[in-house]
C-alpha cells in the first residue's frame, strides 16, 4: 500500500525528465481527456438523479407518514355540522397532533391544476377536506374509522399508505439505478483508459526497449505512462464535471408545482459530492494504466 502511495505522490510531484521519455501523442491524449470528460458529465447527472430521488423518497416518507386526510361528503346543509363534529372527534383522538379544515381558498388551489382558476367552488358539491397531523406514535386508524362511522357518516379517512408505499419504492429504485449507473460509468472509464494505455504502450514499443537497454526499471517506464494518463483523466473529468454542474444549475429550479422532475439537482452539502468525480476518475486512471503498463512490460524482454 505504501508503494501505491509513493507512486501516487510521484504522479503529482512528477519528474519532468521521466515525462519527456514518452513522446507526446496529441490525438490519443485528447481522446482520453474527452472520454474522461464525457464520463464525468454523465456521472454528474447520475449523481443528481440519485440524490434527487433519495431526497424525494425521504420527503414523501416524512410528509405522508405523519399526515392523513379526512374527506367529508355531505349535503350542503349538513356540511358545517359534520365538519365540526369530525374536528371535535379528532381533537379527542389520541395520536392526532392537529386537525384543521381546509379553507375554501386552499381547496380551490388544490383543484386549480385540473379546473383552472376562478372556479366557483362554493357552487359545487365539493367535499370538505380536513388535514390531520399525527404525533410520532400515530393513531389507531381502524378505531378512528369505527368512531367516524358512528358519529360522522359522511367522513372517509385516507391515511395515505396505499400512495406512500409504491412511491417510496419507486424513488428507492430510481436512486439505486443512479448508483448502478455511476458504477458502470466508472467501469467504462477504466476500460477506455486501459485500451488507450495499451495502444500507447504498443505504439511506444521502441521507446520501451531503448529505455530497458539503458537500464530503466519497469517502475520508471510505467510511471511515465501512468502519470500522463492520470493527469489527462483528471483534467478531462474536471472539465466534464464543471460542464455537468453548469448544466444542472441551469435546469429549472425546483418548484412546488413542478413535482419531481424540476427537483433534479443538488442541494446544500450535495454540491460537494460532484467535486469528488475528478479525483476518483484520476484514481481509476492511475490503477487502470498501472495494471496495463505492468502487464505490457512483463511481456517484453
Amino acid at each position, binding site marked *: 500500500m505504501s508503494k501505491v502511495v509513493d507512486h501516487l505522490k510521484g504522479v503529482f510531484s512528477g519528474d519532468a*525528465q*521521466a515525462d*519527456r*521519455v514518452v*513522446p*507526446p501523442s496529441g490525438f490519443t491524449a485528447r481522446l482520453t481527456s474527452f472520454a474522461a470528460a464525457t464520463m464525468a458529465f454523465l456521472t454528474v447527472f447520475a449523481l443528481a438523479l440519485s440524490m434527487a430521488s433519495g431526497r424525494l423518497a425521504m420527503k414523501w416518507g416524512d410528509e405522508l407518514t405523519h399526515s392523513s386526510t379526512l374527506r367529508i361528503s355531505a349535503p350542503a346543509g349538513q356540511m358545517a355540522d359534520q365538519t365540526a363534529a369530525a374536528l371535535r372527534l379528532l381533537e379527542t383522538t389520541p395520536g392526532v397532533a392537529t386537525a384543521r379544515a381546509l379553507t375554501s381558498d386552499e381547496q380551490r388551489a388544490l383543484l386549480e391544476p385540473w379546473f383552472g382558476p376562478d372556479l366557483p367552488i362554493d357552487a359545487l358539491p365539493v367535499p370538505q377536506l380536513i388535514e390531520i397531523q399525527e404525533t410520532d406514535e400515530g393513531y389507531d386508524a381502524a378505531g378512528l374509522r369505527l368512531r367516524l362511522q358512528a358519529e360522522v357518516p359522511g367522513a372517509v379517512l385516507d391515511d395515505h399508505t396505499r400512495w406512500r408505499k409504491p412511491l417510496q419504492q419507486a424513488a428507492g429504485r430510481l436512486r439505486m439505478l443512479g448508483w448502478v449507473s455511476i458504477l458502470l460509468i466508472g467501469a467504462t472509464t477504466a476500460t477506455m483508459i486501459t485500451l488507450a494505455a495499451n495502444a500507447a504502450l504498443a505504439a511506444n514499443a*521502441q*521507446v520501451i*526497449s*531503448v*529505455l*530497458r*537497454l*539503458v*537500464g*530503466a*526499471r*519497469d*517502475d*520508471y517506464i510505467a510511471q511515465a505512462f501512468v502519470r500522463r494518463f492520470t493527469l489527462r483523466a483528471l483534467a478531462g473529468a474536471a472539465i466534464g464535471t464543471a460542464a455537468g454542474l453548469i448544466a444542472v444549475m441551469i435546469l429549472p429550479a425546483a418548484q412546488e408545482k413542478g413535482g419531481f422532475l424540476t427537483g433534479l439537482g443538488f442541494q446544500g452539502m450535495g454540491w460537494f459530492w460532484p467535486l469528488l468525480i475528478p479525483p476518483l476518475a484520476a484514481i481509476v486512471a492511475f490503477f487502470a494504466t498501472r495494471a496495463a503498463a505492468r502487464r505490457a*512490460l*512483463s511481456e517484453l*524482454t
Partner: protein
Amino acid sequence: MAYGYGGAELLSDISLKLSPGSFHFLTGPSGSGKTTFLKLCYGALTATSGEVRLFGQDVRTMNRDDHALTRRRIGVVHQDCQFLDHLPIADNIMLPLNVSGRDDLEDVANLKELMGWVGLGKRGDAYPPTLSGGERQRAALARAVIMSPDVVLADEPTGNVDWEMSQRLLQLLIELNRMGKTIMIATHDMNLIRAAKNNVQARVLRIANRKLQLAGADL
C-alpha cells in the same frame, strides 16, 4: 553454456570468463552468432543450457529490476542503434543517467567532453532521425559509456564510420580499458584489431562452427 533458436543450436559448449579490465575482440563470419553471444553477455537472452553469470549473479535468478540494474553497469552498442526519436541526441546520450536518477552538473560537463570526443559536439540539438549512420553509431557509443560502466559491449561500433573516426572511437575504448573497464568489441575489421593490438593487451575470440575459440596471435 549453449544457446539455440528453435531446436537448432547456434552456439554450443561455450565457456568463458571475462576478467575485469580485459579487452576482447570478437570475430567470426556473418551469422556465426556474434550478436547472439553479446546478448547473452548482457542478459537480453538466456542460455538454453548451462549457466551465465553477470557480476556473479545467475541470469536465471535475476528479476526484471535486477536486469535493469545490471544494464547500468554494462554499456551496450547495438549494430542498429535505437534512440528516442523525439528527444535531441544530447538528451539521448544523457538517458542512462536520467533513468538511473543521476544527472548532476558534473555529468553535464562530461557529456560535453564526451560528445566532442565522438565528433558530435555541434550536433547535440539534432534529432536522431536526422543523423547519419556513422553519427548514430558514435552517439550510441557515447550513450553506452556515459555512465562509466564496468563493461562495454560493442557490436560493430565502427561499421559505418571512416578510418580516422574508427581510430578515435577505438582510442576512447582503449582509454576506458585503461581505467579498468572490461571491453568486448564484435567486429569484422581486422585492421581495427591490428591497430588496437599496438596499444592494448587485446585478446581475440573467434566464433566458428558454433564454438568460441581463442584466436592465435598471428593476425
